[in-house]
Structures are given as C-alpha cells and as structure tokens.
C-alpha cells in the first residue's frame, strides 16, 4: 500500500493472540447466552447443545418495546441533527459576516464545554417545557449535543462545493431553500454518511440520558432496560440478561461489520478535527 514495513511472523502471531483476547469477552457473552442453567456457573464449560430458553425469556414485550424506543430516538436524533446542522453548516461556510462567525464559535465552544453540570438545570427546563419523560426530549438533547460536531463537518464539506453551482441555480430562479435541498444537500451526502456512522453508536449505546430523563417503562430505551433487567434478575438466573445483551448489540455489530471501512475513516476525521 504505502510501502510500510512487513511485519515479522512473530509480530503477526503476537497480534493475533492479542486480538483473540480482545474478542474473548464478546465470544463469552454469546456463549453464555446459550448455556443451560446446569452449566451456567461453570465458567470454562462450553454448551453442548443450543439452549434457546434465555432468548425465549428475553424476547418479551419489554425487549420489543425498548428496541422500538431505541430506534425511535436514534433515528429521530440523527435525522433532526442532519436537518438543522446541514443548513447551519452550509451558511456558516458561505457567509463571512460577523453574525455567522459568532455562531460558528458559539457552536464550536460546545465541543469543549462539558454537559455534566447542565444535567440538573436541563431536568428543570424539561419539566417546565412539559417534555420530561418524553422521547421527543431525548431527540432534542441528542441534537443539541451533536450540533457542534455536525455543523463543523457540514461546513467543512460545503467548502469543497464550488459556488458557481449555486449561482447558476439562482439564475434559473431556484429559491434558496429549494436550491439547498435539491442541489447542495445531495452533494453533502458524504458528510451525512460520516455523521451517521460515527454517531449512531453514541445514541444507541447511551445509558445516562434515558436513565435521567425518562421514567416510564413504556418509553425506556434498550440500555437502561438491560440494566433494569439485570437488577431484577440478580438472585435468579443471569442467562436472559446475556441473551438480551446479545440482541441489543446485534444491530450495531452488523452495521459495524458492513460499514467499518467508512466508519473508521469518519471516526478518525471526527476525532482529529473535534
């Protein structure tokens, strides 16, 4: 590729060994979800048959409901961010006036200011807006959190789009809003892809936000549901907890395997620039 050195055989074997160690917990998780109660607490024993009872227990109303909620807030948060940040990033890249520079720095400061201290005032604000214990609130919170990174990303990509394109669209009598969604937004697709692939995990795996801002089980997302499931089962068999964890992990695992090349590239970009 770029002429980098070949690794020695010893290095390769050592790396293979370490990477198997890295995969071990994942394998352990999957194996445990198939181990029948008789051998469940014998850590080194492998299952001798496919025991599916834990999955039957895990695949209840609770699971499907929280899966649906997770999908809802994940899609909602990503979509709303893409909608507002693409427009904002676009004008932030194109306009040079003070107002826009001010907003650019305002957004960028969000990358540094941590949100820990704001959780309690947010709780109060959400109560005031009658948004407490709603999935809508989660969508807004994720969006607010993503706006700095996403608008930065969109503004960086906008700079690579030639201005002539907009000028000719203007001559054709295309309104600004239409021009943006019909001509510019499709050209920003790589930014959208990067944004989705690097942030879908953040929402799906989030535990803290739903834990604080949601309280009814009907609205709860997957991660707090797993923890609830775990605390409920503490004294009984842990098998179903493993099964539900595997099920919750599966969609992202598939997504990762299918898109990992793009994702790693985007992630690197995000972290280097963020």
């Amino acid at each position, binding site marked *: 590729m770029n002429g980098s050195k070949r690794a020695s055989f010893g290095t390769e074997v050592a790396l293979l060994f370490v990477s198997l160690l890295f995969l071990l917990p994942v394998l*352990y998780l999957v194996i445990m979800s198939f181990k029948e109660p008789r051998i469940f607490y014998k850590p*080194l024993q492998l299952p001798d048959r496919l025991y599916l009872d834990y999955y039957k227990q895990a695949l209840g109303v609770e699971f499907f409901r929280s899966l649906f909620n997770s999908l809802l807030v994940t899609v909602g948060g990503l979509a709303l961010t893409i909608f507002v940040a693409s427009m904002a990033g676009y004008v932030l890249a194109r306009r040079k006036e003070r107002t826009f520079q001010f907003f650019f720095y305002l957004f960028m400061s969000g990358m540094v200011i941590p949100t820990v201290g704001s959780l309690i005032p947010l709780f*109060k604000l959400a109560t005031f807006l009658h948004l407490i214990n709603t999935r809508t609130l989660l969508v807004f919170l994720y969006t607010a959190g993503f706006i700095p990174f996403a608008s930065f990303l969109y503004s960086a990509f906008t700079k690579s789009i030639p201005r002539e394109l907009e000028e000719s669209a203007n001559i054709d009598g295309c309104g600004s809003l239409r021009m943006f969604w019909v001509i510019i937004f499709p050209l920003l697709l790589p930014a959208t892809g990067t944004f989705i692939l690097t942030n879908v995990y953040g929402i799906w795996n989030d535990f803290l936000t739903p834990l604080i801002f949601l309280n009814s089980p009907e609205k709860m997302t997957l991660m707090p549901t797993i923890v609830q499931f775990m605390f409920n089962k503490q004294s009984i068999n842990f098998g179903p907890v493993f099964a539900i964890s595997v099920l919750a992990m599966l969609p992202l695992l598939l997504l990762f395997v299918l898109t990992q090349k793009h994702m790693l590239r985007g992630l690197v970009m995000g972290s280097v620039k963020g």
Partner: protein
Amino acid sequence: MNLNRKQFMVSILFLIPAAAIFILFFYVPFLQSIYYSFTDWNGVGKPKFIGWANYAHIWKDPHMTDGLWNSLKMAAFGLVVQNPLALLAAVLLNRQFRTRSFIRTAFYLPVIISLVVASVVWGQMLQYDGFINEVMIRIGLESITEDWLGNVWTSFPAIILLTQWQAIGYCAIIYLAGLQAIPQDMYEAAEIEGARGWSLFRFITLPMLMPAVTIVLFLTVVGSLKLFDLPYILTNGGPGTSSYTLFLAVYNAAFKDNNYGYATAGGIVLAIFIVIVSIVQLSATRRKEVEL
C-alpha cells in the same frame, strides 16, 4: 444591496433552527448551572444563594474527593500505560501482513459495544466464581484469586483495566490514521542519512504524530473524568467510596440525594478540569503547528 440584504436574511433563516435548539438545550442549562452551583437547592422551591459553600464542601466530601482522585489515577494510568500500548498497537497494525484486516476489526470491535453490555459480560467474568478466577486456578495462580469488584483494593483498578478493553483500540485507530498521514519520503530521506529503527521513530514518527498524541491524551483525560456507566452498574462506587468517579459522585448527589445545588457545583468543578485539559491540549497543538 437589497438582494444582499435578502440573502443575508435567508441565511439567518437557515441558521435559526440549529441555533435555537443549541441555545435552548445546551447554553441555557449551562449558564443556569453556574448560578445553581452557588445555591442550596433541592429541585423544588426556590434556590437559596449560599456563595461558595458548595464548592468548599466538595473538598470535604469523600464521594467527591475519592471520585476525583480515582479519575486522576485513571488518567495517569491512561497516560503512562494505555497511551504507549495504543501507539505500539498502531505501529504494528501499520505494517503489512495477511491477517491485518481481521486484527484491526478485532481491536476496534470492543469500541462499538455499549458500556452496559460490557458491564454485563465483565461483571460476570470478574465474579468470585467467574471466568477470570477459574482461569487463574487452572494455571496455578490460585493464591491471587479475588472478588475483584467486591474488594476495596481491587475494585477500581479492575474498572481501569476494563476500560482498556475499549480505550486501546480507540486510541490505536487515531494513531494509525496519524501514522498513515506521514509522507513516506521523509523516512526514505532519513534512511539515506543513516537513521535506523529507533531513531527513525524518535525523530520522524513521534514528532509527526504529535497532533494525534495530543488528541489521544485529551480523550484519555476527559474520558476518565466522565466515566460513569461502568462504576454505576458494576459497583455503584463501592465498596465504600473505593470505585467512585467524579461523575458518579455528581450523579448520586443530584439524583439520589436531591442535593441539586451541590451536585451542579460538582459538575462545574468537573467542567473546569475538562476546560483546563482542553486549553492545554489546544495550546500544545498550536505550538506544534508553529514548529512544523
């Protein structure tokens, strides 16, 4: 002029939705939190202004101090152990070999797994009759088996080691990108000058990698200050306060003890630490840019 004015207004319209959401759900709560941190407030009723009392109390509260101390220990471990390991992994992963894409996937895979799921697996593996101890017994290390998460001395070190499972892969990928951005001819030129092995690494790779290093250091320190999920699920800070992190202390002060004013002050202290780290990182990066 008129057209310009119109275009300006249209551009503002493009900006408004993002600005509104960001200000309402990010800036307003942030500014409010500064005010609340100087008050005695339990969430209902009126906050009572008490000056610096919350901040003074933080340093006497073992949850907060142990949490902060643990976070700093973890950051130190991250800098001294995790960081060089990630760099080593990246250097090795940058070489050519047949199983490279498999190994890269394996290294990175833990990163996408949620901390909740990670807690489920590791919590089970670390139990007294769990996988880790069983392996220890089999290889003859019976004397050092331990209830890893239930012991004051081992609970937080165990959590630190768990974080490595995800952190090493994450940092290695950032280093890998940094390595791949180094132009190959720099090495060739240096080799002609007679530089070999370690000196190539010391005088080309490392300086060229400085931006990536500062990013990784930043992520390591901030990550250790903000760690919450693992101790919350695995130990809830225990036994005693042995595995508290600053974030967990803030969370418990707010949502367990309803001591909101005090919790916000803890949040502000946490934020100040993060801002300090950011400033150090930014100035370090900028200095490097000047040198280059």
